[in-house]
């Protein structure tokens, strides 16, 4: 791609202008006619829901990022009953859509426990900083979404950019016998602490 991604804004501009997110979307079942449109239009058609922790690093940037992509999102918090209820409402209204979740490990673990067995968690990643300052990304899940994401990981600079890529991955389609694999990658350091992300598809997609 040869794009230097210096900020969330340039990342998004690059994503939208060159439609770099399109391969991700097309590979997960977005209709051909939608691919011909803008990223925003496509995202609405496929309509992933992005859940990310409000008080994790760059929560506000994540919100701006997914908004610009036209994706639905819901902030997560463990601290307020109203936030938990908002998440549960979002999940209830998200039937049939893919979910991208990003937050601190305990938060994502808690969300995962509210998803299953209604959703299929097709990919989970642990993102933590190594002693040398690099970011480690440990993926577990299905090969197809893992392969798609792995091509992006060394290009995203922070959790906000990662959230945009993750959320752009719509609902997938594959056989139930698909094998789970693991993949370890590194990237330049992200700001903030350890994070976990996951991608879940609705029951029936798998």
């Amino acid at each position, binding site marked *: 791609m040869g794009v230097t991604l210096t900020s969330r804004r340039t990342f998004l501009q690059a994503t939208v202008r060159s439609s770099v997110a399109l391969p991700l979307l097309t590979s997960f079942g977005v209709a051909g006619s939608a691919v011909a449109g803008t990223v925003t239009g496509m995202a609405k058609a496929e309509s992933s829901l992005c859940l990310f922790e409000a008080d994790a690093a760059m929560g506000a940037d994540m919100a701006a990022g997914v908004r610009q992509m036209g994706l639905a999102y819901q902030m997560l918090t463990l*601290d307020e009953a109203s936030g938990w209820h908002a998440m549960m409402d979002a999940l209830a209204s998200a039937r049939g859509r893919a979910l991208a979740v990003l937050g601190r490990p*305990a938060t994502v*673990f808690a969300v995962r426990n509210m998803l299953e*067995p209604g959703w299929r968690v097709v990919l989970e990643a642990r993102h933590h900083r190594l002693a040398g300052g690099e970011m480690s990304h440990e993926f577990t899940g299905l090969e197809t979404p893992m392969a798609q994401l792995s091509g992006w990981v060394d290009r995203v600079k922070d959790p906000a950019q990662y959230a945009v890529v993750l959320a752009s991955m719509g609902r997938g389609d594959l056989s139930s*016998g698909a094998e789970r694999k693991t993949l370890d990658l590194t990237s330049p350091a992200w700001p903030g602490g*350890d994070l976990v992300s996951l991608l879940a598809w609705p029951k029936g997609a798998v």
Partner: protein
Amino acid sequence: MEAVLPPGIKREQFAALVADLQKVVGREHVFTDAQWELPAYNDAYLTTPAELHQPSAAVAPANVEELQRVLEVARHYKAPLWTVSTGKNFAYGGPAPRKAGYIVLDLKRMNRILEVNEKHGYAVVEPGVSYLDLYRHLQKIGSKLWVDCAAPGWGGVLPNMTEHGVGYTPYGDHVTMQCGMQVVMADGTIVNTGMGALPGSQTSHLYKYGFGPSVDGLFTQSNFGVVTQIGIWLMPEPPGYRPYMITFEKESDLHAITEVLRPLKVNMLVPAVAMTVEMLWEAAVQVTRRDYYTGKGPIPDSVRKKMRSDLKIGAWNFYGALYGPPPMMDNTWEVVRDAFASIPGAKFYFDEDRPADDAAWQYRKKLGAGIPNMTEYSVMNWIPNGAHIDFSPISPVTGDDATKQYELIRDRCNKAGFDYCGEFAVGWRDMHHIFCLTFDRYDAKQKARANKLFGELVDAAAAAGYGEYRTHIDFMDRIAGTYNWNDSALLRMHEKVKDAVDPSGILSPGKMGIWPKSMRKGRA
């Protein structure tokens, strides 16, 4: 993970069993896919191989009628069921069954709030109602009743009570606050306990004991029936609420704190389930271990001191609250403050004295007013891939006992390379001592050490005369075995009851060490 079968059931029979369950609840509410569905019924915090607790299927009835038909199917095939509902029960086995092959009976869909009685202060709920659900409902209808919740608000009102859980307000002893119960027995019979046995009863949820033996307790922490409804008393919003925190400088202050507290508690000057919390629990809610220390083994004293200073916490931290009209709270506070002020170094805080970003204070302040939240779950961020099993002995409210239990656990856990992270929940005459044994769930060696340590703690506590109130599925037999006075007379009585009320042995075999006759040889 490979699919497993219920014990003693062949593959063809299992297929027929699943088909029969699907006829009862619909295909979408019978889960058999080992890759995508059944992991939801595993325990992510196991210290033993997951294969030991892998369910063969899960079934989720929507109502009592469906539940009765599920029981009929289970009796027909002699298939063991493992009852769970909402709430997660992490630290005690999560939704995972005691043994591989059981079918998880998931009551999450039975989630109706059947009644809120504002006048008499109670609610009637089904098993799938969480504290967050009930709180939301009370807010929606403008109720002036409070919930008393578990620290993670996703806990279930009914299942937390049946597991003898406690909360944080004056209504924190959940078993005490339960009144009236509906149980479906293994043979499908529906039983209303207490006053509810009277047709048209006006007092099902007002008087606990009914006429004749009071049997509600038989259905808590047991496998004698499936509890499908309870009445739970709710505290009316008081005219005033003023939570407080008292910090103590020294580890050895635990003795004095407990001695000062006992008369305050017994005389109801500390009306709520108060908490004496060790510093690492406080820290783990808001920072990570790596923020302060990257070495192995227990955190050194010098580092602990810096954490206390940064976070404005003590070696021990006491949380209580005043309830009532302001003049009453003022008077009570004078007594409480003066009593604890006798401990050198005690520092007193109200809401306005704590930093606004103090996550530990903020969530405990909410808990004391029955406002559910999930903040305490952040403790699992303390170490990478954080997981925990809780060792939970009961202690008398004395300085000697608190110190003895604390040292018994601390020394063994430090020797095993773990930090002590724990708290004492102070009830009417006892303390639930909760030691949160935290480990990396992807580190096989740590898990093995945690498992070994836990067993050592069970034995050491029993030898000192302390028993646990609740435990992880892997330790149910071991702990049941410590309650062995008079040749295990209590366990033998439990087994007689089990054989009488569940002769097919289908309900949660092995729960709390109680096995049906056909499986007693399998006791681990």
